[in-house]
């Protein structure tokens, strides 16, 4: 079993215009994209959004194949959505085979849903691909800050995210180590039915949880030993700053969203 090639929140470092944008600009852009994708109805609109996304990928100098590969984990959901829409929409029948009927409306709807999902996945993945986790959490913290008065623990949330991201590789490594140790005792993680496989995970999960709790304790103590007291009065080494490119980017994004959203 290989865990190393997991691609959750993968970041591709770079120095392109997109990489240099303030993370808050990119978070805003992603939010606009999501809104836009649900506002747009019609293939011309989707085409324009697709072009815009392609433009960003080009600007960010991201490898195309890598971006497309991000769709793979969601392929099942994608196929299911398209399939259900194609086969279950009522309307003008254009094809019938046994119990399967395809209607003109279904085809259009399935195509739309599929396109919407693909654009959604690819578009939002651009955020994590071009923004380092640290920048991303800094951006989220800064955006949540105004809501602190309403009791949103902005700094704490951001810190939790940072720590969670930081510990993904550590936990994967730990998992591999424990698996090896249990395999040395004759454990078998691969064969057997569903129940048996689930049961065979106990010798893996129990030590993993124990070690995660131990790590959490140790980390908390280490942070306190270094004077961590939450967000109060904490200054930043990397300050977020809106630059001119951010102003240009936001202007473009908002104009694009309004124009496409209203007209298509």
């Amino acid at each position: 079993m290989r865990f190393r090639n997991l691609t959750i929140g993968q970041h591709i470092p770079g120095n392109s215009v997109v990489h240099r944008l303030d993370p808050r600009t990119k978070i805003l852009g992603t939010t606009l994209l999501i809104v836009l994708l649900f506002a747009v109805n019609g293939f011309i609109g989707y085409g324009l959004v697709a072009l815009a996304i392609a433009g960003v990928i080009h600007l960010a100098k991201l490898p195309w194949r890598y971006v497309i590969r991000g769709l793979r984990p969601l392929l099942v959901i994608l196929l299911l959505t398209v399939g259900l829409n194609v086969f279950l929409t009522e309307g003008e029948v254009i094809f019938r085979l046994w119990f399967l009927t395809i209607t003109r409306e279904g085809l259009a709807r399935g195509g739309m849903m599929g396109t919407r999902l693909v654009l959604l996945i690819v578009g939002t993945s651009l955020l994590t691909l071009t923004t380092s986790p640290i920048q991303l959490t800094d951006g989220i913290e800064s955006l949540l800050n105004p809501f602190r008065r309403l009791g949103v623990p902005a700094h704490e949330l951001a810190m939790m995210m940072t720590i969670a991201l930081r510990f993904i590789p550590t936990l994967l490594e730990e998992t591999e180590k424990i698996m090896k140790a249990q395999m040395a005792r004759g454990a078998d993680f691969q064969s057997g039915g569903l129940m048996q496989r689930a049961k065979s995970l106990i010798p893996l999960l129990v030590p993993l949880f124990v070690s995660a709790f131990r790590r959490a304790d140790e980390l908390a103590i280490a942070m306190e030993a270094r004077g961590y007291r939450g967000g109060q009065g904490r200054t930043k080494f990397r300050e977020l700053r809106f630059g001119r490119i951010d102003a240009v980017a936001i202007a473009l994004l908002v104009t694009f969203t309004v124009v496409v959203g209203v007209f298509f």
Partner: protein
Amino acid sequence: METEALLDVTLEIADGEFVGIIGPTGSGKSTLIQHFNGLLLPSSGKVWVDGVDLTHKDTQLRQIRQKVGMVFQYPEHQLFGETVLEDVGFGPRNMGLAEEEVVERVRRALAYVGLDFAELKDQSPFELSGGQKRRVAIAGVLAMEPSVLILDEPTAGLDPKGREEILDEICTLHRERGITVILVTHSMEDVARLVDRLIVMDRGRVALDGTPVEVFRQAETLKELGLGLPQVTELMHELKAKGMAVDTDVLTVEAAEEEIVKALGGQR
């Protein structure tokens, strides 16, 4: 980025040997021992255990892993059972043994590591002390009754008494049951005292291979690798450099004492 963790390693370990493996951090010790029971397979080359080729696709690696028991670093981190009996019995149960046989093996395995079966069997392993956890974890491997036992720094993080006891127990197992022991350690004192043969790893290769006396004669090479000599051996080297007529092939305090007394003319 790929690195070659092991390169050009040719080794034969005979039945009943007590072998020590030392080497600086990152020299490939842990990678090497994981090849001995098929947890890792070489990208090129072969590994044989009792005449069975581990790299062959029909080889039942689970059977090999019963024969070659492996105690990882900090083995107590792999404890999971609700009771000591369940945890130590995990290996034997995976072998498909009958429950009575499993219990019997757990009893024996706990005895090897100096723990009392009746007292501990129903306790949670998580409530034990650090040293006891370590022993329970080692017992979990011993319960499969392997003919080869590999231990990766079994005494790391234990107090001196715990270290001593665990090493003594391993020694007893080797002596009385004749099992082959492969011990990875950073302690020159431990290897000097215990092993018949010492393998020194460096950057994925075998740098030195011989009896402890032979290996420790290569003081220069060992120092270059960032390793040292056992303290008594170091002492003998220094005495000799100061002009005392002592033999430097000394690995234990007792032998050193005898050697110094002899050099002083026989009187204490």
